[in-house]
């Protein structure tokens, strides 16, 4: 099977996030960039399917030069080929604008299955997979924790946890799956894997190569725009309950929750 995995590079989840002087973006100077954790599940699942059925895994990333590192990480894990859309006019788009770039970059690549993360942990947008499925007119299976390909490779059956239940969906291939934690445990890149990755094909594309103009992508092609960023409401440390014993502290706490916080 031919499998595509969309990879976004995001700040490490430990990163301190500070608003920049323009008020619409963040300061990037001290940020360590990593592959979106949900995309790691996508790479892993694609590799596991390929190990069973044969075929090829292609990873795609849209973003500046640094994104090459995350694409190489995926190649080192075992992906076969990478496409990097490296064009400032493609960056910073809303879901649909980004999905257009992704759709453009796979227009000549055959695929049976596409993986996206259920959300990227930077903008927490949770939309690009859905938008891409719309543009490609293929079934969308969101927030998936289990993937089973049918023996004839024509269908996929998935598990999707929702509030209070798990839904089992089935859809014909090609389809797009967005990944959720629990799907698998992503492997680490091995040393030989890292060596091999250096020789694997990684092609850089511009918007023009995808048949797109700047007004269809990036900020220019976006419907949704950021007006401004604000720090979240402050949460200050409250009271530490003083007392000699657990009994004493517990009694005071319950009284405070009832009388002061009025929560119970």
């Amino acid at each position, binding site marked *: 099977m031919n499998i595509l995995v969309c990879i976004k590079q995001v700040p490490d989840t430990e990163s301190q*996030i500070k608003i920049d002087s323009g008020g619409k973006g963040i300061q990037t100077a001290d940020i360590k960039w990593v592959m979106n954790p949900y995309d790691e599940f996508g790479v892993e699942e694609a590799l596991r399917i390929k190990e069973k059925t044969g075929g090829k895994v292609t990873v795609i990333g849209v973003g500046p030069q640094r994104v090459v590192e995350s694409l190489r990480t995926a190649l080192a894990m075992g992906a076969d080929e990478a496409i990097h859309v490296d064009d400032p006019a493609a960056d910073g788009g809303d879901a649909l604008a980004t999905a257009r770039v992704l759709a453009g970059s796979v227009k000549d690549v055959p695929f049976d299955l596409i993986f996206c993360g259920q959300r990227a*942990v930077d903008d927490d947008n949770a939309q690009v997979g859905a938008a891409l499925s719309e543009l490609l007119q293929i079934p969308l299976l969101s927030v998936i924790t289990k993937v089973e390909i049918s023996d004839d490779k024509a269908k996929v059956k998935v598990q999707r946890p929702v509030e209070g*239940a798990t839904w089992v969906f089935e859809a014909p291939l090609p389809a797009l799956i967005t990944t959720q934690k629990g799907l698998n445990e992503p492997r680490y890149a091995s040393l030989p894997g890292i060596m091999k990755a250096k020789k694997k094909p990684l092609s850089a594309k511009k918007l023009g190569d995808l048949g797109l103009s700047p007004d269809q992508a990036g900020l220019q092609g976006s419907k949704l*725009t950021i007006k401004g960023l604000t720090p979240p409401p402050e949460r200050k440390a409250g009271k530490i309950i003083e007392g000699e014993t657990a009994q004493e502290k*517990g009694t005071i706490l319950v009284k405070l929750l*009832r009388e002061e916080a009025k*929560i*119970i």
Partner: protein
Amino acid sequence: MAKGIFIIAEQRGGTLRKISLELVSEGRRLADQSGQSLAAVILGHQITEEAKKLAAYGADTIYVADAPELAAYTPEAYTAVLSELIKAQEPDIVLGGASQQGKELTAKLAARLETGLAMDCVGLSLEEGLLIARRPIYAGKVYADVVCETARPQMASCRPNVFPILEPDAARTAEIVSVAVSIKPEDLRTTLVEELADQSGKVDLTEATCIVSGGRGMKDSENFVILEKLAGVIGATVGASRSAVDAGWRPQSDQVGQTGKVVNPNLYVACGISGAIQHLAGMGSSKVIVAVNKDPDAPIFQKADYGIVGDLFEVVPVLEEEFKKIM
């Protein structure tokens, strides 16, 4: 000229979900503010009676799309029916839930309608007819105000448990409009094969008003019994840190945090949880946070409204006893 506000109500098994009431209530607020009408849209099978309940919360019109194929949610059929209705009615604003189903549905719908969607919002306001949507990004480390200037409808999905539900007014009525449903074969590619009900029957963490969570400090899966007992007394749902999930003590569906669930309860009690940044990302906006930890320097105390420095195995049973006395 675009007009009116639509909310996409959510039902499961023919019963409205709580998020639907949150959506109508917020829709009503925006409608009153802008002098527009409010319509609720519901898809399902034999749901007209249930749909009428939305009138009491403020819907002026209720669109009911009723068909056997719509009994259970499937992304393609629901997107097809909703996009047709929205194209025909041209509402100015469409709100959906940022629930599991709602996130997928609103994202597909926005793409099909080629408009902008503000996902997982915690606040909505109107400025000169424009919907200003506030949404946490970077796991809540920053809030973004986003706007869709030109494309219509303006769309937003609302985070569950954030928008207050209005007092229902039984005297209110709404016009019920039945939507002509035409579903094409290509809208039925994705099918729901089975729904595996969660055996615990507990309120989902994203909808819970009270949560008691355990972390690595619980030391073992069996020890969660003490949290279950406390939760039973105060009507809470039990959650967990990633460490507790990764240790196999709790299922993935219990995980709170950046790669788990984002929760918004009135009360969050963290037991044996250090308060790593990725955990705080999931529960930092709880109204009241209580931490029980034996390490006085645990970062969780920096965010907690009330902290007890002590051994959770001693403190939790006391809390259970004390709550029992007053509940």
